C-alpha cells in the first residue's frame, strides 16, 4: 500500500512543471556593436581599424585577392609554396631566420598564408612593439625575397607530406570526397604531386608576388590597443612608398564538374573503422534558400540533437561521430556532406540508416518543435556573434572582400526567422538529391561484414597511392628528331645492323652481379618483346620473378608459394624491359615512341606513357656507352646510369658483357655476363613455369 502511495506522489511530482521550465529570464542586456573606421590609403589599399583596449595587444591581417584556384595545373602547389616562403624566405634586409629571432624575442608574429580564394599576411604583437612589427609586416607583404634555401626546404617537406598523404583515414576521407565531388582534374580538386612540385622555381614565386600583391588588391584590418588617428598616420607613412600597379585580378574559376554518383572505396588494411562522407555540391551563401537549407541541415545533422546524431549515434550506437552540413561558400558552392565514422562491419547498415533519414526529411514535414528549436538556437545564440569586438571586424572584412552586403548577418537572421516547415520540405526536395550522392568510404574491406554492393550502387575503387612523377621529356623539333634518328641509326649499325637486331627473338643470360656487398648469381630469360623470367640466388635463398607482359608472380624463400606480383614490382619490371638495349635501339620503328636528339651524342627516347630514357653513344665506336633513366628514390628523383663495356658478338649482335650501375652519380653495382645466348627457342610456358 505504501509503495503504491509513494509511486502516486512521485508520479504527481513528475507531472508538475520541472524547475528549469518555470524560470523567468530578464531581457538580455544590450549588445554593443563596435565602431569600425574604414578608409583608403593614397596608394589604393583599403584599411579597416577597430580600437579594442581590453588587452595590450594588436593584431592585423591583410587579405590579398588571389588563391590556389589560380594555380596552373602543371604547377599545382606553386601558390602554396609561394605563400609559405613569403615569410620564411625573409626580406631584402633580413633572412627568414633573422626575422624569426627578431620577432620571437618580442613574442610577436608575422605569417603568410593562402587558401582557394584568399591570400593573407598577418601580424600580432604586444602594443609596445607595434612600430617594429609593422615594419616587418610591410617588408614581408611588399618585398619578400624568397630565398632559395627555404624554397628547397618547403618543397622537400611537401614531398615528405605527399608520401604520408594516405596514412590517416579521416584525412583521406575528407580529401577524397572533396576532390571527387569537385573533380580531380579541376582547380578545386587537384592535388600537389611530385611532378608539379618539381616544376616550381623561385621565378614562379616572384612572379606570383608581383602579379597579386599590389596595393589596390589588398585590404588591411587592424584591431587592438591603439589610437585610430595615430595608426592611420603611421600606415600612411609606412605604405607611402608602395605604389606598384597591376591589371585587376580576374574572377575566380567556377565549379563545372559533375561527379559520377556511387560509392568510392579506399582500402586501408591498418584500420578497423570506416571513415565516410556522403553528399554532393552545396550552394552559395547568397542563395535565397540558404537560411532554409541551414535549418534543414541543422535538423538533419547539425548538432547533438540532430536526427542523424540521434538515430546513428544515440539510438543505434553505430558511430562516435556523425553529422551533416549544408556547405555554402562565398563565391563557389561548398559541399553538402554527411560524414562520420563507424566500425567497418556496420558500414552498410550505417549507410542505409542515413539513406532512410535523408529520405524521411525529403518526404515529410519536419515537426513544429524541430523547426522552432533550430530557429531559437540561432536567435538566442545570436549575441555570441558579438561577444568579442574582433568578430565584428573580421566578419565585415570578409563580407567586403567577397562582395557581400555589410548587413548580411542581419538579413540572414531575419530570413531564418521567417522559414516555415513547408520551406524546409521544399528545399530538401529541391536541393538534396540522393541520386547524385557520392559515397566515399575509407575502410578495411576485409572487415566489411556486408558487401558494399548490397547498396545497389556502382562501386569505384580509389587508389590510395601516390602518383609517381611522369618523366620530363626535352622539347622536340624537326631538326632534333632527325638528329635523334641519325644517332640511333649509327648505334643500330654498330651493334650489328637492323636486320640482325630484328632477328633476335629471345635472349638467355647468366650473370654474376655485385650489388653493394652482396654477390648474386642471376639467370635471365627474355622473350621478345615483353616477357621475362629472372632467377636470382640471394644470400637468403632463391628468388624467381616471372612476367608474361601483363602480370606475373614472385617466388621467394619463406613464402608459401608463388605470389602475384605486387604493383610496385610490376612497374619495376616494365621499366627494366623498356631499358633492354636490343629493343631500345629499335625505338624509331616502334609506334608511339619518340627519339629525340638532345646533345651531340645523346638521344632521349620516350614512349608517351611516362617512360623515358637517355642513351649516349660512344663517338669512337658508335656503340651505346651509357643509358640513363630517372627513378624515384627516397629523396625524390634520382638518375640511374648504366655504363656498358666488354662488347662481344652473340648471334650477329653485339651485347655488352659488363654493366656498371651508378645511382645519383654513386656506384651502386656491377653485372658481369658469363654467357649470353640468343634465339635459344625459350617458350612462354618455360618463362611462366611455377
Amino acid at each position, binding site marked *: 500500500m505504501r509503495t503504491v502511495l509513494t509511486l502516486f506522489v512521485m508520479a504527481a511530482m513528475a507531472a508538475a512543471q520541472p524547475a528549469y521550465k518555470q524560470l523567468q529570464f530578464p531581457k538580455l542586456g544590450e549588445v554593443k556593436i563596435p565602431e569600425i573606421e574604414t578608409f583608403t590609403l593614397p596608394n589604393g589599399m583599403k584599411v579597416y581599424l577597430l580600437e579594442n583596449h581590453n*588587452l595590450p595587444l594588436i593584431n592585423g591581417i591583410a587579405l590579398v585577392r588571389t588563391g590556389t584556384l589560380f594555380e596552373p595545373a602543371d604547377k599545382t602547389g606553386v601558390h602554396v609554396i609561394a605563400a609559405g616562403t613569403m615569410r620564411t624566405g625573409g626580406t631584402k634586409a633580413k633572412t627568414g631566420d633573422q626575422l624569426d629571432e627578431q620577432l620571437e624575442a618580442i613574442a610577436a608574429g608575422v605569417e603568410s598564408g593562402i587558401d582557394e580564394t584568399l591570400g593573407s599576411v598577418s601580424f600580432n604583437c604586444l602594443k609596445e612593439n607595434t612600430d617594429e612589427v609593422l615594419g616587418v609586416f610591410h617588408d614581408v607583404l611588399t618585398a619578400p625575397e624568397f630565398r632559395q634555401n627555404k624554397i628547397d626546404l618547403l618543397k622537400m617537406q611537401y614531398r615528405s607530406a605527399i608520401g604520408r598523404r594516405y596514412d590517416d583515414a579521416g584525412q583521406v576521407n575528407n580529401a577524397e570526397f572533396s576532390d571527387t565531388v569537385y573533380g580531380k582534374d579541376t582547380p578545386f580538386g587537384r592535388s600537389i604531386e611530385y611532378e608539379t612540385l618539381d616544376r616550381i622555381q623561385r621565378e614562379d614565386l616572384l612572379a606570383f608576388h608581383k602579379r597579386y600583391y599590389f596595393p589596390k588588391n589588398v585590404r588591411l584590418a587592424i584591431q587592438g590597443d591603439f589610437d585610430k588617428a595615430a595608426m592611420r598616420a603611421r600606415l600612411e607613412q609606412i605604405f607611402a612608398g608602395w605604389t606598384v600597379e597591376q591589371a585587376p585580378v580576374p574572377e575566380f574559376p567556377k565549379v563545372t564538374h559533375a561527379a559520377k554518383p556511387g560509392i568510392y572505396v579506399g582500402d586501408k588494411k591498418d584500420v578497423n573503422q570506416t571513415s565516410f562522407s556522403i553528399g554532393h555540391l552545396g550552394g552559395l551563401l547568397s542563395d535565397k534558400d540558404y537560411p532554409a537549407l541551414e535549418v534543414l541541415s541543422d535538423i538533419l545533422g547539425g548538432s547533438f540533437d540532430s536526427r542523424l546524431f540521434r538515430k546513428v549515434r544515440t539510438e543505434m550506437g553505430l558511430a562516435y561521430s556523425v553529422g551533416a552540413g549544408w556547405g555554402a561558400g562565398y563565391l563557389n558552392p561548398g559541399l553538402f556532406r554527411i560524414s562520420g565514422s563507424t566500425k567497418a562491419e556496420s558500414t552498410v547498415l550505417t549507410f542505409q540508416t542515413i539513406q532512410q533519414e535523408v529520405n524521411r526529411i525529403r518526404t515529410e514535414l519536419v515537426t513544429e518543435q524541430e523547426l522552432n528549436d533550430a530557429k531559437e538556437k540561432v536567435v538566442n545564440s545570436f549575441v555570441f556573434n558579438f561577444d568579442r569586438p574582433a568578430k565584428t571586424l573580421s566578419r565585415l572584412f570578409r563580407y567586403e572582400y567577397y562582395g557581400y552586403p555589410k548587413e548580411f548577418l542581419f538579413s540572414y537572421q531575419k530570413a531564418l526567422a521567417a522559414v516555415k516547415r513547408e520551406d524546409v520540405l521544399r528545399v530538401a526536395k529541391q536541393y538534396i538529391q540522393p541520386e547524385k550522392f557520392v559515397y566515399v568510404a575509407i575502410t578495411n574491406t576485409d572487415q566489411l561484414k556486408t558487401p558494399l554492393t548490397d547498396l545497389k550502387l556502382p562501386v569505384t575503387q580509389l587508389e590510395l597511392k601516390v602518383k609517381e612523377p611522369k618523366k620530363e621529356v626535352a622539347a622536340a623539333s624537326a631538326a632534333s628528331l632527325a638528329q635523334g634518328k641519325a644517332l640511333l641509326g649509327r648505334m643500330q649499325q654498330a651493334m650489328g645492323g637492323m636486320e640482325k637486331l630484328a632477328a633476335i627473338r629471345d635472349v638467355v643470360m647468366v650473370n654474376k652481379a655485385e650489388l653493394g656487398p652482396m654477390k648474386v648469381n642471376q639467370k635471365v630469360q627474355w622473350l621478345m618483346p615483353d616477357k621475362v623470367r629472372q632467377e636470382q640466388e640471394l644470400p637468403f635463398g632463391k628468388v624467381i620473378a616471372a612476367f608474361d607482359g601483363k602480370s606475373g608472380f614472385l617466388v621467394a624463400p619463406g613464402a608459401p608459394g608463388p605470389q602475384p606480383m605486387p604493383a610496385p614490382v610490376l612497374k619495376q619490371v616494365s621499366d627494366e624491359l623498356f631499358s633492354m638495349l636490343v629493343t631500345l635501339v629499335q625505338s624509331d620503328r616502334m609506334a608511339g615512341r619518340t627519339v629525340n636528339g638532345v646533345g651531340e651524342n645523346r638521344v632521349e627516347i620516350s614512349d608517351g606513357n611516362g617512360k623515358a630514357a637517355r642513351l649516349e653513344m660512344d663517338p669512337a665506336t658508335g656503340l651505346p656507352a651509357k643509358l640513363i633513366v630517372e627513378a624515384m628514390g627516397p629523396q625524390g628523383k634520382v638518375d640511374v646510369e648504366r655504363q656498358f663495356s666488354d662488347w662481344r658478338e652473340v648471334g650477329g649482335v653485339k651485347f655488352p658483357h659488363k654493366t656498371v650501375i651508378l645511382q645519383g652519380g654513386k656506384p651502386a653495382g656491377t653485372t658481369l655476363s658469363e654467357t649470353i645466348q640468343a634465339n635459344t627457342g625459350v617458350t612462354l610456358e618455360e618463362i611462366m613455369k611455377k
Partner: protein
Amino acid sequence: MNSMSSWKLSGLGLLALPLLWGQSLADFEKRVTEFTLKNGMHFLVMERHESPTVAFHAHVNVGAANDPANASSTAHMFEHMIGKGTASLGSKNFVLEQKALAAVEAAYDRLEEERRKERRADKAQMERLEAALKKAIADADQYVEQNAFTREIEKNGGVGFNASTGLDTTNYFYSLPSNRTELWFALQSEWFRQPVFREFYKERDVVREERRMRVDSSAQGKLIEALLSTAFTAHPYRNLIGWATDIENLRAKGAAEFHKTYYVPANVTISIVGDVSPAQVKLWAEKYFGPIPAGPLPPRLNTVEPEQNGEKRVTVETEAQPFVAIAYHRPEGTHPDDPAIAVLDGILSGGRTGKLNRELVEEKKLALGADSGATFPSGKYPHLFIVFMVPNAGKTVEDLEKAWDELIERMKKEPVDEAAVKRVKTKLRAGFIAGLDSNSGLAQQMAEAHVALGSWKKVFTELEELEKVTAADVKRVLNQYLTKKNRTVAYSVQVKREGK
C-alpha cells in the same frame, strides 16, 4: 641603424612587461569573487561586462587515473552521460523509467552471475539471459526523450556545450546569453546531484567507437598507447582512453558507485566568467547547489610509479609512415623544477627558433616535424617530458633518435643560450595574455589553477616563478631528467601489407 632602433624597442618592451602583470593581477582581484558552499563546493566568479554573455566551467577533480581496476574508461563515461540528462529533463515518465533502469541492472546482474561460472556456465541459459537483458534495455529506452538536455541548452542560445575527460580532471562547459544564467544553475545542479544513467549501454558502444577512432585506427594513437603503457609500470597514467574489453563490460551500477565516491561537492569547482552579478550568483549557488549533501573527499591515489632502472623501448608496426616518440620521467606539475622544464620545452620546440625546428627540420632536414611537450599525459602526478618526431621521406626513426641524442647531449655540455631563455619567457607571458581574451578560456584557467595549484591567483604568480628561471636551471633539469636510463623510446614502423 635599423637593427639598433629595434634593439632599443625590444628592450623597452621587456621592461614594460612586469608592470603590466602587476596591474593585471590587481585588476583581476577586484573583479573576482570567491566563495565555498557549506557542502564544500567552491565557486569562482569573475565579472566582465563587455558583452551580455557568460561562460560556465564545472571542474571535477577526478579523471581516468581514478578509473577502477577492470573498468577503465569509467570517468570518461560521465563526459558522455551529461548529455543524457536528469530526472526532470530527458524522460517521458521518470517514475516508470527508473523502474525500467533498475530492471536492466537486475537483468545484467543475472547474466554476469552466470558468466562468472566460466566453463561451467550454461550456454542456453546465457543466451536466455542475454535476450532478457536486451529486452530490458529496449523497455527502458521507450521512456527516453532523446537529447532533451542538450536541446534545452542549445534552444536557449547555449554555445560550446561540451565536456572533456583527462587523466586527472573532468570538465563540463558551455556559454549562455547572460540573461539565462539561472538556467545553467537549474540544469547543472540537478545533474550533479543525480545524473541518470539512461542509454548507458549505447553510449558505451559510442565510447568503444571513439577508441576505434583514436587508437585502433590511428598509427599515432597506437604509438602513444604503447609508449605510455611501457613508460609507466604501475601508475594509472599508463592508459589514456581505456582498454577495449573493459569498455565493452562497463556497468551503469559501477558508474553510480563512481559518482557517489568522486562527485561529492567538495571535489567540484565551478568558475563563472562574464556578465553576471556575484551577489546574485551566490544566491543561486546556495539555492541550487546548496541542498546537495556533503560527502567525504574521495580517496587519494596511492600508487607511485617506481623508479626506472634502465632504458625501455617499444615498437609498433602499422601501414602508416614512421614516427618516433621519446619520453622521460619528470616530477609532478607542482614541483619546483616545473618552470625550468617549461622553459626547456620552449627552447626545444617554441616557434621557428626552437632547436628541434632549427636543427632537425631546417639544418639536417631529417624531420618533417618535431615537437616536444613538458607535461604528458597529465600533470598532477609525476609524468613525462615527451618529444615526438616525424621523419622526412627517406629518413628513418633511427636517424631521428640519433640526431635528438646528439642535440641534447651537446646541450647538456654547452652553456644554455641566455637569449633563448629570455625569448621563451617572453613568449610564455605573451601567450598567457592572449589567453585572457575569451571568457571560456579564462574560466577554465581559473578553475584548473584553483584545483591543481591551490588558488586561481597562481595563474598569475606562476609567471613570476617562470621569470626566476635561469640558464643554469635549464641546464640542470636537462642533465637531471633527460637521461637514457630514465626514458622510453617508441617507434612506429611501416609494414606494408599487399592485397588480402
